[in-house]
């Protein structure tokens, strides 16, 4: 097969898991300072197989099975980064990153600041997050608000296969720490993306309009993007022409794209599965309201998970915001003052 033929062949569907694995592989091949470490990332290739093959290709020193200790993993990554390496750390599940919070909050996030720019930490912390996979307790948390509340961390979350590749490349290349949240229920989502022709590496901090519309904006990210796209489709029947904005990066936050959209549509709903109270949506609503107040025809609403500890799998469908809850909120955008 000629190169030209290979390029013109239709791209085979690839999963987000494969895109993430390719992103690390390509980064490691290009830059010998990129090291992957975590629990079970070597021989096993990670419990989600995201690091599959890396240890074989690059050796145990570049893709390392660590002892089982998250604080130790992230803490040693700090030292590795201090000595010029670019560690990519895998936390096995959202709630198992909590033992590493001390390192993340006390050191990773503020090392640049406390050394007056003298010491940067280019660490990527990959965290599979969110529910919808029937995981038992402590396997479904959406922890993004904790990370967002910590200055010095970038918080990135892809929702598509292409973005999984591009954003992880950007995260690894970033000279500041990135908490890279991987929506685990989208790991096996597919797209016609060819690992042979990797997607463009987009800079961190840019939201994207996934669907253009005129009557209201759905602002969302990660695992809730497919929900919003489905809701937008369904809303057509009700005469709603919804725009869907995928944030991709929670920190830094792309006020420009979000507010341009809301100014166009005059109405907005923020959708995510993390809890509402103290959740990411509160910040987003506040920013939109501050910047677009005179363009708003209705209050900016939130559709979120309930303010409860993540429920057991058999009840999670009642907790996770689905299409109906989004459509309900959209209906409430037909807002009349005093109503």
């Amino acid at each position, binding site marked *: 097969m000629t190169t030209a033929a290979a390029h013109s062949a239709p791209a085979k569907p690839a999963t987000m898991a494969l895109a993430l694995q390719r992103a690390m592989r390509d980064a490691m091949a290009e830059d010998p300072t990129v090291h992957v470490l975590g*629990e*079970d990332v*070597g*021989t*096993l*290739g990670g*419990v989600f197989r995201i690091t599959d093959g890396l240890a074989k290709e690059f050796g145990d020193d570049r893709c390392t*099975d660590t*002892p*089982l*200790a*998250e*604080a*130790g993993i992230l803490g040693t990554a700090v030292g590795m980064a201090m000595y010029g390496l670019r560690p990519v750390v895998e936390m096995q599940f959202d*709630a*198992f990153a*909590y*033992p590493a919070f001390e390192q993340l909050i006390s050191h990773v996030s503020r090392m640049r600041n406390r050394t007056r720019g003298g010491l940067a930490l280019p660490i990527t912390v990959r965290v599979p997050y969110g529910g919808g996979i*029937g*995981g*038992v*307790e*402590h*396997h479904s948390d959406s922890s993004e608000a904790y990370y967002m509340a910590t200055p010095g961390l970038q918080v990135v979350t892809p929702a598509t296969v292409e973005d999984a590749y591009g954003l992880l490349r950007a995260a690894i290349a970033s000279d500041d720490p990135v908490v890279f949240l991987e929506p685990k229920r989208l790991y096996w989502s597919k797209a016609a993306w060819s690992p042979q022709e990797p997607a463009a590496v987009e800079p961190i901090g840019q939201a994207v309009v996934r669907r253009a519309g005129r009557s209201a904006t759905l602002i969302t990210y990660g695992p809730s993007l497919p929900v919003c796209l489905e809701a937008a489709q369904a809303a057509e029947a009700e005469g709603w022409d919804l725009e869907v904005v995928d944030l991709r990066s929670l920190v830094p936050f792309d006020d420009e794209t979000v507010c341009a959209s809301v100014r166009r549509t005059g109405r907005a709903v923020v959708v995510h599965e993390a809890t509402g*109270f103290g959740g990411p949506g509160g910040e987003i609503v506040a920013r939109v309201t501050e910047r677009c107040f005179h363009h708003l025809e209705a209050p900016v609403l939130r559709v979120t998970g*309930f*303010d*409860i*500890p993540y*429920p*057991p*799998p*058999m*009840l999670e469908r*009642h*907790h996770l915001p689905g299409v*109906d*809850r989004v459509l309900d909120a959209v209906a409430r955008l037909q807002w009349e003052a005093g109503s």
Partner: protein
Amino acid sequence: MTVQELPGAAAYRPTPPPAWKPRIDPAPLLPDPEPHRVLGTKAAADVDPELLLTLYAQLVRGRRYNTQATALTKQGRLAVYPSSTGQEACEIAAALALEERDWLFPSYRDTLAAVARGLDPVDALTLLRGDWHTGYDPRERRIAPLCTPLATQLPHAVGLAHAARLKGDDVVALAMVGDGGTSEGDFHEALNFAAVWQAPVVFLVQNNGFAISVPLAKQTAAPSLAHKAVGYGMPGRLVDGNDAPAVHQVLAEAVARARRGGGPTLIEAITYRIDAHTNADDATRYRASGEIDAWREHDPIRLMEQELTRRGLLDDTVKEAASEAAEAMAADLRQRMNADPVLDPMDLFAHVYAERSSQLREQEAQLRAELEAEGDQR
């Protein structure tokens, strides 16, 4: 030029430091060079036949529980099951070494220890079935919730044991953890607190060779996990984890010691994980099939049967009674697990706080309305 040759070095006489000796003699804390064994040794003759028979029946029941629960995952009745096949002796003998007033702090793999302590087999599985995080009231059987984050239950055990002692109760806490879990910071902090406070806690590490895919050699460079005890100032014990009476003996001694104010003990039970990490794991990725064979030979039930036979305690009646009891348990488990659990979605809000906030009441109303609308559509 060496230090000695420095000008004036000959005249330099540092004042000798004050005499140093270890605060306590480390030797008595060191584990035995070989794991403690009873089966196949002379000591076996001294074990109470009653205890041997109880352990045997429980092992057979435990094995059956493991195979039944694994079968339930294949039928989709359990979301996931971390089997303890091959490790039943640790689970059961440890639980049976406790008195009723003592507390058990299990990890997510220790369902058998909880069941051996009298917990309803179905209640022990709700975490893994997915209908509720903890299917029982921890105070009832004195079993803390099966704990998913690794090693985080260990400091709880220390705190509880400490509190009991402060209150003047002679209660002991048994805290179980895997070999991988010993790498977590919480393991270190728990052992350190326990030793400093001389808390009545027994730490049992089930060393089954792997933390998911990571073998012990990549987990620790210590001579043994039991050796870690010395650094905290508590005794370390090594035991053959497939030798049920040996596990029972070592645990019972440590529990008795803790109860009389002797402080904590760290016990490492050497065993092997016969099944994969969970039904979702593919163990062929990280271990050779031949590796299991020696351990299958050294099976805890087999070892017991050999001993019971040698002592003339095992006849067909005993064997059949054990297997019938196990089958009855399995049939009951199967039957009750095959019924769909009755869940009330409104329970999502029932136990977040002692009193519901107005926000939660709002969300509750929202869900109720959704459920009613769903009901209307049916």
